[in-house]
């Protein structure tokens, strides 16, 4: 997955500034597909290796390693078949159409990083503050909403949601572990 993501993040030399796809774009696309297929082959090899160390067969019947081992083998075979298929195929404009533009990549990365940050800081800063900042970022920076819309929506989504879940659904969302913030009721 990391290799795939890296492949998507580089600027593709085959895609000109005008957005018209040059022939090189097909080759880049082919390379990305080949890399993906190889990632699947590597994953299969890993699964086979891991399953090999588990019990394949017991007195009663198949052991814990039986099913994943065969799945790994089948996955490896299918991945190799796909590798052969993409290596021998000529590219088409549709193949390159999926590549995101630079700004698209920025928006995707911003969203994913915001999600990761939200998950990472939730226990430290508390749900209310983290979610407020998360929503402000998404609404204002990515969504380009007016300040008052952003603040109202972020307040409802963070403080409102915290109390809704706590009071009505009996689900306590995390409070801040930083003393200063905890004292502020966050």
């Amino acid at each position, binding site marked *: *997955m990391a290799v*795939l*993501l890296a492949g*998507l993040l580089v600027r593709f030399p085959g895609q000109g500034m005008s957005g018209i796809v040059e022939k090189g774009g097909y080759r880049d696309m082919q390379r990305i*597909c080949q890399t*993906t297929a190889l990632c*699947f082959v590597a994953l299969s090899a890993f*699964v086979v290796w*891991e*399953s090999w160390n*588990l*019990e394949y*067969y*017991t007195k*009663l*019947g*198949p*052991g*814990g*390693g039986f*099913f*994943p081992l065969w*799945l*790994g083998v*089948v*996955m490896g075979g*299918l*991945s190799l*078949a*796909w590798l052969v*298929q993409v290596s021998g195929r000529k590219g088409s404009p549709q193949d390159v159409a*999926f590549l995101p533009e630079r700004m*698209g*990549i920025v*928006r*995707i990365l911003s*969203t*994913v990083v915001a*999600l*990761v940050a939200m*998950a990472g800081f*939730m*226990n430290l800063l508390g749900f209310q503050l983290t*979610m407020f900042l*998360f929503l402000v970022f*998404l*609404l204002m920076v*990515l*969504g*380009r*909403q007016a300040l008052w*819309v952003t603040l109202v*929506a972020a307040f409802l*989504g963070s403080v409102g*949601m915290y109390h809704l*879940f706590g009071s009505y*659904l009996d*689900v306590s*969302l*995390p409070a801040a572990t930083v003393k200063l913030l905890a004292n502020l009721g966050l």
Partner: protein
Amino acid sequence: MEILNQILLGTQIVFQPTNLLFCFLGVLMGTLVGVLPGLGPTAAIALLLPATFHTSPVAAIIMLAGIYYGAMYGGSTTSILVNIPGEAASVVTCLDGYQMALQGRAGPALGIAAFGSFIAGTISVLGLMLIAPPLAKFALSFGPPEYFSLMLVGIVILIYLASGSILKALMMAVFGLLVGTIGQDSISGTLRLTFGIRELYDGVGLIPAIMGLFGVSEVIVNVEKVIKSKVITAKAKNLLPSLKDWRDSFWAIIRGSVTGFFIGILPGPSSTISSFTSYAMEKKLSKHPEKFGTGMIAGVAGPESANNAATGGSLIPLLTLGIPANAVTALLLGAFMIHGVQPGPMLIPKHPDLFWGIIVSMYLGNVMLLALNLPLIGLWVQVLRVPYPILFPFILLFCLVGVFSLNFSQVEVALMIGFGVLGYLGRKFNFELAPLVLALVIGPMMENYLRLSLIISRGSAWIFIKRPISAILISITIALLFSSMIPGIGRRRRKLQERIERQK
């Protein structure tokens, strides 16, 4: 007489205030997600599943099923008014529905879509009511080999009906099965592929996986593009179709309902396939096929009826065999299991209240939908004005809160984000996500049935061939897998897919 008693039991269950409320909430939410492009019933069910944890199983399933068939109703509104299908199953409705709107006939188009959906929904509930109990009785004779073969054929049909490459769909199914093996082996207790992470001992949770694959990845796909909110100016007046409209669409509704119901039973994206099949059938049977695409009311009535009828059909394998037919019913299976109920042949004898409650709730839900759709069209048009830049942060919020509130685990949130990125990449590379989800849900059951079968036969795989039902199912699996390699059939399948893609 017995069936009447059962219906009476179902009616008593549904008319309890809580269940009525949940039925209403389900169809309302379903219509809402059907109206909103970029949020399908799968993502909506995943988002709302955690909200049902504190309710009874009956109320939870009634609400989640309501979202499923409600979304089919809502999907037609945007197709007709603004040429944006709210649902994949409503894509074909754009062809004639939007043309009717341009000619100032949006009202009758919306009206016939709502009435057609109601009639189809009713027919499919009747079909479900009549077919499910005898099928469940038949399934009582199934043993582990039959179940394993049935699950295998289910996955293979889903792969065969995949819109892209069979090879890629197969890879996704195997990947889903592999993810399903993570955690403690239920027979030997061995830990498998857990990397020492305690949260993975119970396996990869269904909710983080589904929310990531359908909720987060859908948001990532949408934020990639510059989001422009289309100004909605469409208006709909005179919703009641005229007598001529009824004459032109009555048989299309009946044909669409029957076709949709039977296609719904098959594994795969049945709602979408059934609406395309119905459109093709109406065009073929029409005296004026050349007029299709210019605002023919039968081109709206048939597909809209078919996609609604398919929802009832797709519940048959889930309720009678415990095997989901598509991603939405896989989620419903997850919901059943979370509430400690195992759908399958024993569902009707063990939980008649649940089974008949769902059936009657679907009928009542269809009445509610008719009441919701006709007078509230104006409201749904207003909903379309909510800009996506405001909507998507809240979808992510619900995903985060939904997953976190399950076990208060940050690992599960991380898994959801990982599945979100994986889902995005899968969509980009044209990997089908439905086989992955189905395999992930039924993978652990499938492994257990395989191992139990081999224990019964003392390691001999002949058990799958010796038993007649299993042998038939295995033959179908092999035939499907190999038929796509036969040049003629493979070419025809590709041509059909290309045609569907073009129409999209």
